[in-house]
């Protein structure tokens, strides 16, 4: 078996490769869009000379592979290009919005991950009891509804019926952390409700799977209490699948937040992406797409590395 270092290095290399492939797909996807971008933006009434000048400005006259590599090279240097819609550098447009998206995702994760792991452990502990069934039923129902539906239900309950939280989650830099959290409470709840079921079910299944191992029987025959068996004996060995599902859900919190941001008019990257698509602001769409992809791959990479490290055999070689 490879050493820890080599295994991690391999995963990182694969992550980078995936990212390159995705960048290629994003680029080709835009390339394959019907019609000429310059024409589409300037409208049909534009003069051919204007279109030609605009094409040159967008470097559309260059062959695709050169444009791809320049775009990718610039991207990795932090230069995302300029927006077509308002001519501002994309980095400026994206920067603070991305921070907002990350803020929302982080708060949601800080609630969702511990809640779902604790619920998963409890469900495994009281397996097949009424408690287990109720938790499964509730979390599965929340995951079965589309996010916008959950969002509107929450708005109807918590900002229309009971006027506790705002239905529009506008935040700005003057707000204190507490005010911000108050403002994003509803989108945060929506996201939590959507991701908890998956993580909780996986935690429960992984623990129950481990509970059939001989070393669990051994612990029981040593007279260890059930709660301790689950937390100390089963959970550390169930980490790998749990880490993986947590990472996928964290990635979802960042990437899948688009719909929720739109519903709550939250100034995040998702909102920007939706706006840019409708404005045909191609460079912004490309940049956002690649950022989302990087986050997704980064989190999965982190999960891979963590689950490798969580294996005591690899952490403590002979």
């Amino acid at each position: 078996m490879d050493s820890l270092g080599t295994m991690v290095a391999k995963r990182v290399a694969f992550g980078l490769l995936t990212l390159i492939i995705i960048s290629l797909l994003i680029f080709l996807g835009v390339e394959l869009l019907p019609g000429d971008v310059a024409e589409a933006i300037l409208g049909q009434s534009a003069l051919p000379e204007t279109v030609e000048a605009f094409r040159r400005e967008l470097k559309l006259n260059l062959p695709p592979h050169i444009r791809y590599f320049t775009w990718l090279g610039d991207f990795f240097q932090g230069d995302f290009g300029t927006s077509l819609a308002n001519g501002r550098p994309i980095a400026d447009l994206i920067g603070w919005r991305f921070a907002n998206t990350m803020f929302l995702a982080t708060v949601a994760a800080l609630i969702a991950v511990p809640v779902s792991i604790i619920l998963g452990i409890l469900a495994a502990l009281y397996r097949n009891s009424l408690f287990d069934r109720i938790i499964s039923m509730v979390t599965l129902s929340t995951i079965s509804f589309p996010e916008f539906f959950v969002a509107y239900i929450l708005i109807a309950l918590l900002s229309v019926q009971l006027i506790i939280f705002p239905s529009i989650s506008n935040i700005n830099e003057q707000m204190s952390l507490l005010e911000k959290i108050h403002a994003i409470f509803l989108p945060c709840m929506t996201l939590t409700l959507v991701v908890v079921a998956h993580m909780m079910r996986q935690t429960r299944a992984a623990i129950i799977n481990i509970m059939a191992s001989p070393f669990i029987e051994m612990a029981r025959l040593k007279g260890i209490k059930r709660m301790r068996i689950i937390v100390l004996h089963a959970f550390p060995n169930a980490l790998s699948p749990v880490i993986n599902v947590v990472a996928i859900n964290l990635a979802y919190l960042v990437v899948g937040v688009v719909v929720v941001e739109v519903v709550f008019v939250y100034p995040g990257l998702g909102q920007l992406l939706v706006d840019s698509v409708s404005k045909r602001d191609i460079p912004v769409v490309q940049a956002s797409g690649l950022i989302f992809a990087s986050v997704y791959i980064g989190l999965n990479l982190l999960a891979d590395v963590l689950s490798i490290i969580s294996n005591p055999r690899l952490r403590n070689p002979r």
Partner: protein
Amino acid sequence: MEKLLTIKNLQIEGFSNEKWMPIVNGINLTLDRGEVLGLIGESGAGKSTIGLAAMGYTRQGCRIASGSIVFDGMELVGAPKELKRKIRGTRIAYVAQSAAASFNPAHRLIKQYAEAPIQHGLMSFAEAEKKAIDIYQRLLLPDPERIGYRYPHQVSGGQLQRAMVAMAMACQPDIIVFDEPTTALDVTTQIEVLAAIKHITEQFDMAAIYISHDLAVVAQLADRIMVLRYGNLVEEGDARELLDNPKEEYTRQLLSVRTFRKHSDQNDNDRNVILKVQNVSASYTGKEMVLEDINLKIRRGRTVALVGESGSGKSTLARVITGLLPPLQGKTIFDGKELPPALKSRDRESLRQMQMIYQMPDTAINPRHKVRKIIGRPLSFYFGMSGKEREDRIIDLLEKIELSEKYIDRYPAELSGGEKQRICIARALAANPNLIICDEVTSALDQLVAEEILKLLQRLQNDLGVSYLFITHDLATVKAISDEIVVMLQGKIVEQGEKQEILTPPHHEYTELLLSSVPEMDPDWLDNLLAERQAVQAT
């Protein structure tokens, strides 16, 4: 005086096929302080179930239907969970068959040792640590001060098994239940663990229930033996008396020594060599050698036994011969023709001539195929048979392995372990091979079933003239079936030759170690052997 443990009329049921079936039928059992009781029987005899029941524990899908289990004046059947939990680990402890599976891979040994005493409020970690080192020392574990700080995967199988015995000792229990603690070990390692167990039970005057399928092992430790079969008591008695003078036919069968190999004539004609392995060296990583310069010949109609402990490279050699692992050096010559090293470049005809039978019939056959398909596939694959012709041949093969025609429509799940292994044999025979490689084919089977399989293989050889390469770590099997013996150690052949020659002294020292480590039915065997080895070491 009241006994430490009294089990009366114990009835345990297991849930299968939608109904509760009896596993243990009205067993009575008593255990005094300081007494070692041996429970012996084949799998399915209910011995583990009884051992666990002594702790008031039943596995998932089992229940105690009736009877009583009284431990030190406390009734355990129907006792509150909390009472049973408090007894477990402190007053009755358990040693499982596989230490590798029974230690939590995520925690250090000493943490697992100390868990029971700390959780039951008997000691602090520092106290438990001190005691652990003492017990590790008594069990002759190397580096007792530090071994506890290793993870389970960082120590060897025999050491881990002893560490588990130590763990059971942590709270100085009144009874330890040993559930086949040496079954998964090599013969030479088995001795270490047996000696450790004997030593510790005598030293602390502990009572123990020792469960095993191997009568010779039980004989070394037990004061009293109970023979079980299908959940019923067959015979019970003082260990020596039971061995000297078994009353029941079943016990006699367990005691009987297996030899049924007729002596075949030695034929040194090179034309009769079916397989020749020349100067083979192999490695999985390209760096560490798993096999070094192996030379070996198998003649037609003969059985060559390949013996060695786990890790000696026996199965790797089989992988090289079959082409699964191309060797770094050397060649495999089959029937006078050199075979390509890699499996994928061998033609169908040479694949056909060499077949394999594996240790675990459960994993070697597809559980979703019926017997017809399992045996029929090689017939279609190698001979293009179909329809009636194929059907007849399958029935013919079933007959050869002593199974009736009606087995043809069964799934593997409907067969017993021995029957599954027979199906594997039939599948190998279907190809009409000249050589069958048998990789530990009997080690997953119960003694009497294994014997039947060996007899069958022997008969097939007499009838069909097929050669066997018989890989095993069990020397009793070797004695029973082989013509020639090849002894391997750390990837090298240390001794090879005719069976008679190898089994009669003088031996190579490693062969000697292997041979002397096989437990004998004599209750004094372990003591004598240990004394002998100590004497040799002293000189």
